């Protein structure tokens, strides 16, 4: 980070996301009062942010690379149901369930990536297909095996401590996972060559391939990452709430995409940042939960989120053109 000037900060992809985050926090401080920033208030939105955030980063990376993944909507319940059926309904050890959960993520992610790379079908359509296919598979299998769509699971203390407990009674342990994976993503995306490859791929796939970047492999890996992340979040939720439902997860599709776009990722690919996605996720969670601290009806939060999304898209374009037109002052 050289020369930190206001100007250079404003050209960063996360600039808009940061301002948006500050604005919504200020808004809910004014209308909701300070409770919203007291420990229990913070927990309310941080919990939401962490669950979305773990999925939003890989989905955001896919968007930077020019792809989209909406199959996460059924990967979350898939992760929940696999662990609940294997270790709740049956008595397999949890570690075995975890391997199957992540393994299923690898398989679905690979299918998504493989189809996107080897057919000309847009990733929205491919993942729409796997979204329904996985949802149907999970529903069908759970009814077939357990006879219900909701399965309970009692995990041993160790696994609850690591994946699904409330720290201090209110903070979900998944928050720590979110912080940890965010740090790893920031390192790999912004400080190694792999990040460069993803941005190049989103800028121009053909040129990136000609420059020797393994675009096929990289795309498939990104799809695997997002499918595994969604399955992981689903698994953590099942361990936290001691039960799993087939239907939980579809709202995540919208929430994740909103967080990514509000986080400054340009829809056409090639521009964005991990920190921006984190800001976008927090912004979304604050609006989503902050409304409970105000006297407003909760329905208004959808209006705020909708307006925010549109504002973010417009702002992203502005910041993007500011970044593009930047030239050092003539001396």
């Amino acid at each position: 980070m050289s020369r930190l000037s206001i100007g250079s900060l404003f050209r960063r992809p996360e600039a808009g996301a940061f301002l948006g985050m500050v604005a919504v926090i200020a808004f809910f401080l004014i209308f909701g009062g300070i409770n919203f920033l007291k420990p229990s208030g913070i927990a309310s939105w941080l919990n939401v942010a962490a669950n979305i955030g773990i999925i939003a980063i890989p989905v955001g990376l896919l968007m930077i690379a020019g792809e989209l993944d909406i199959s996460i909507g059924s990967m979350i319940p898939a992760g929940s149901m696999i662990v609940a059926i294997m270790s709740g309904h049956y008595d397999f050890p949890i570690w075995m369930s975890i391997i199957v959960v992540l393994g299923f993520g690898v398989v679905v992610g690979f299918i998504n990536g493989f189809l996107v790379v080897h057919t000309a079908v847009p990733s929205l359509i491919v993942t729409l297909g796997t979204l329904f296919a996985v949802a149907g598979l999970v529903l069908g299998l759970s009814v077939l095996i357990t006879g219900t769509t909701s399965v309970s699971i009692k995990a041993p203390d160790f696994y609850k401590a690591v994946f699904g407990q409330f720290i201090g009674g209110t903070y979900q342990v998944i928050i720590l996972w979110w912080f940890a994976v965010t740090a790893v993503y920031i390192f790999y995306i912004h400080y190694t060559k792999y990040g460069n490859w993803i941005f190049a791929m989103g800028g121009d796939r053909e040129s990136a391939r000609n420059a020797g970047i393994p675009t096929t492999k990289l795309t498939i890996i990104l799809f695997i990452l997002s499918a595994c992340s969604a399955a992981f979040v689903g698994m953590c939720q099942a361990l936290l709430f001691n039960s799993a439902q087939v239907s939980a997860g579809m709202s995540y599709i919208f929430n994740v995409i909103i967080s990514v776009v509000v986080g400054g990722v340009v829809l056409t690919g090639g521009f964005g940042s991990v920190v921006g996605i984190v800001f976008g996720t927090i912004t979304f969670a604050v609006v989503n939960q902050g409304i409970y601290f105000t006297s407003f009806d909760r329905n208004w939060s959808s209006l705020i989120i909708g307006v925010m999304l549109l504002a973010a898209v417009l702002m992203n374009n502005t910041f993007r053109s500011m970044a593009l037109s930047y030239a050092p002052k003539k001396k």
Partner: protein
Amino acid sequence: MTSPVLELRSVDKSFGPIDVLHDISLKMNEGEVLCLLGDNGAGKSTLIKTLCGVHKPTRGSILMDGAEVTFSTPREAQDKGIATVHQFGGTFPLMSIGRSFFVGVEPTKGWGPFKIYDRKKANKIAVEAVQNFGITRVDDGDRLIGGLSGGERQSLAIARAVHFGARVLILDEPTAALGVKQAAHVLRIVNEAKRRGLAVIFITHQVMHAMAVGDHFAVLIRGAIAADFRKGERSREEITDLMAGGETMADLERQIEGYADA
């Protein structure tokens, strides 16, 4: 005389039933600029795509340093030193100069899983490479490609090709859509690349630009070489007519004859 860097021998290219190139034979030498001229649809882009590995010739052969070569991908051609710069040069408008310069070959420091991208080094080398070509206005490797002018982008792309050891530089209409000053910039860089011993293939619709840098000219009409001559062998008017004409081959030949006799 040493063998040409790159040579085409009787190359034909058809797309199914459509014959685009007929019996093209051309030689490209080190330190020379070959100007490829011709009307729209004459087959210029197809010809260079055949040279840089995008298309395979239907018939005929490509030779490098006198030995026959086949490129199955653009990457293979690049590895052998054939660099292509398409119109608008930098293709990653939202990436920084340093990052796009090194796409795919990023300099790193550190070890194992903690190898980090060496931004300072990348920026320094990229800026030096461009400045070496006389583009002194580019002095910050963190600037985005999209913020550069068209000429600067072309120059950056050419500097990049030279930096990574290109021997043959293919430029498809690098001066199209550029103003007079910007075009002059690019032409200067083409000359600099030539001075460094690269064989340059330069496609343009502008005779002035061709005359400014060309050593050797080939005019394509309907996929065939209608004229092949060296600098000074034809006047500007003759070249202009060659480029503009070509309703039919015979028509054109009569025209050329007429000029030559006059």
